[in-house]
């Protein structure tokens, strides 16, 4: 039966995470963007929310919560409302924990999930994107060639969050004949893998990202996510797109709220600029686009929660958000005029962050 209501649990999570985003993340966002560093204390506080360890079974030390993509989308939106870079940082361990939880073998679950159940933040991340203008998850150029019992990886990755601090990385690579994509769980310091310099990006400046280079990088058969059967990469991509799109909604929502409040305060010709149709219509359009985008994200997430294929839905939602978040953030800068261009206000940062959604994939998952 059609419903747009969050469950009681989801409302509680939204309120808790939303409060954290407003009270803790947002006040730290500008300084983090300028310095390129996220305070460790903030990351530690975020860890206490249990967003990574929650769905891990109690037998492995987690909370045994039900994991839902809809809930994941709500969390991602709320955190990104505070700040996108900080949201991506604190959620990055999910990029290993959740695929292992859902698609890993028993042995992989035993071996890799425990690290996420401790009291302190456990850095971990996945490598998906490649440094190509037309990077395409369906046509990956990083290749895992079978070699005896194991695999040899060759290729290059980029935009790998927290790679410098992660003990474990989940690397997505195509098979030698390009007929499938697999995830490989590996340690950062194995031979044949070189972690490059920290990247410098237009936005997400507080998020540490790195390039990776694989040259004859040998891993055992046990490294392949899901073992012999492999993992469902299409589903993993759908989950990632839902998460990224939800974050886009969060950034857009932040920009809208700020621009709306500013437009009601700022006067021109003796009246608040929000009373002028030219400005009011921009704000109305932003509000409509945000709601439309959120509903598209929820619908894709809902398909995932039913165990259905959400390939098309998540892709379309992601593309919609990539365009609408950018447009909303740009409008927000425009509503503030010259002040929007000045770094005293956050809207220019949100414009830089929003620009990333059409280029970036795989920085979060639900």
């Amino acid at each position, binding site marked *: 039966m059609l419903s747009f209501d*969050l469950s009681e649990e989801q409302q509680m999570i939204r309120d808790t995470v939303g409060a954290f985003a407003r009270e803790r993340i947002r006040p730290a966002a500008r300084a983090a963007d300028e310095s390129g560093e996220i305070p460790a204390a903030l990351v530690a506080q975020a860890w206490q929310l249990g967003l990574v360890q929650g769905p891990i079974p109690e037998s492995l030390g987690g909370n045994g919560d039900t994991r839902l993509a809809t809930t994941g989308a709500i969390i991602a939106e709320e955190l990104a409302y505070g700040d996108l870079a900080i949201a991506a940082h604190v959620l990055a361990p999910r990029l290993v924990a959740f695929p292992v939880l859902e698609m890993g073998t028993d042995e992989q679950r035993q071996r890799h999930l425990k690290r996420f159940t401790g009291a302190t933040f456990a850095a971990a991340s996945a490598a998906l994107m490649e440094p190509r203008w037309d990077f395409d998850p369906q046509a990956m150029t990083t290749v895992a060639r079978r070699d005896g019992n194991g695999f040899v990886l060759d290729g290059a990755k980029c935009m790998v969050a927290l790679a410098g601090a992660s003990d474990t990385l989940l690397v997505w690579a195509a098979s030698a004949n390009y007929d499938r994509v697999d995830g490989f769980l590996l340690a950062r310091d194995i031979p044949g893998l070189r972690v490059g310099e920290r990247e410098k990006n237009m936005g997400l400046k507080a998020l540490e990202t790195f390039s990776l280079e694989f040259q004859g990088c040998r891993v055992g058969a046990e490294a392949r996510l899901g073992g012999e059967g492999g993992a469902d990469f299409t589903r993993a991509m759908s989950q990632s797109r839902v998460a990224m799109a939800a974050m886009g909604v969060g950034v857009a929502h932040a920009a809208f709220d700020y621009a709306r409040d500013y437009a009601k305060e700022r006067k021109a010709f003796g009246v608040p600029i929000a009373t002028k149709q030219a400005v*009011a219509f921009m704000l*109305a359009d932003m509000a409509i686009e945000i709601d439309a985008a959120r509903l598209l994200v929820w619908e894709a997430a809902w398909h995932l929660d039913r165990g259905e294929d959400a390939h*098309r839905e998540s892709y379309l939602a992601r593309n919609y958000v*990539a365009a609408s978040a950018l447009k909303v953030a740009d409008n927000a800068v425009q509503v503030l005029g010259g002040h929007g261009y000045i770094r005293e206000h956050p809207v220019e940062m949100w414009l830089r962050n929003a620009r990333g959604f059409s280029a970036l994939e795989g920085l979060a998952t639900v």
Partner: protein
Amino acid sequence: MIDFEIDPQTQKRIELFHTVAEQMMRPISREYDEREHDKPWDFLNAMWAASTAPGGDPMGGGDASGQGAAKMRNVYTVATTEELCWGDAGLFLSIPNAGLGGAAVMAAGTAEQKQRFLAPFRGGKPKWGAMAITEPGCGSDSAAVTTTATRDGDHWVLNGNKIFCTSGWMAVEKSEGFVVVWATVDKSAGRPGIKPFVVEHGTPGMSVARLEKKLGIRVSDTAALVFDNCRVPAGHLLGSAEVKRDGGGFKDVMATFDATRPIVAAMAIGVGRAALDFVRGFLAEQKVEIRYGLSPRRLSAVERDFMEMEVQLKAARLLTWRAAWMLDMGMRNSLEASMAKAKAGLAVTLITQKAVELLGPLGYSRRNLVEKWMRDAKINDIFEGTQQINMIIVARRILEYSSKELN
């Protein structure tokens, strides 16, 4: 709990209405577009028979005669409206029912008036209800109506001109229907002085001045009505004659738009889906694959266009469902209804224009229905509140401004 599944009861009706759309509407779609005000009586009679049969549903926009079978009536209405407008939006608007006139009776009438004016719509010959609010000098500014109602003994006497009255011809001359006419009983009172009057077919002093020739939805008649000392019994004023200075009555009636705007949005979505489905089928025939999941930088322009059409339509539908669902849940939905209407009207205007473009000369040709759908789609960006009026409503709500503060 978030859930996008339509209840099974409504789903069954959607499937039934899809068959109606496919087998009864599509085959006559082109013919009655070209013949303009000529009515497809076989179709109209069949729809009337189906809706007045035991267990039948009133099919068509704005009908609120209380027969809807589903628990979630507004969701049911938008879902089935989309289906019928996938068939043909003009034919959908032509289906005999109490229409917007019925919606006004439901919103403003007393229990006795609802029974009296709507009972005839449950049987007998096909009938139409219509609503006359727009005048040559005022459209969206509905509070500015100049048609007057003057009390004379046990009657009200109406004088003035109304235009853009959907199905007005059918209600006034072609059936034993009625028109709900908005007229002011006290010009000095402004909005609160504007009251709805039921004027039944054949009432002396009411006449159809002309039928408009339109860009699209041509099979649906859009009438200009003249009221020249038109006398109606006092009991035909819906609700109370008292002029409340706080805005009372008129405000309540404007609230009916909260229910009808999602229906118009759903109409738009039906037309947009017709165009999208046609393009999808056409591209498949041409062996043009739509490669979902591919890097957007590797997609062809056609793929990008098609995907944009698809997702815009979906976005509009989700906003529309939400607005209807809120009403079913008893929530106030003016903001969300206007969001849905503004989004759907514009999105579908652009989707159908793009469909014509994608098919090139085949889209422009009247051999296919795509050009017709483009013409039909545009009305949804205009009637029941233009896109701009809905944007103003959205803006006022999000900014918490009154109509005085933002106009």
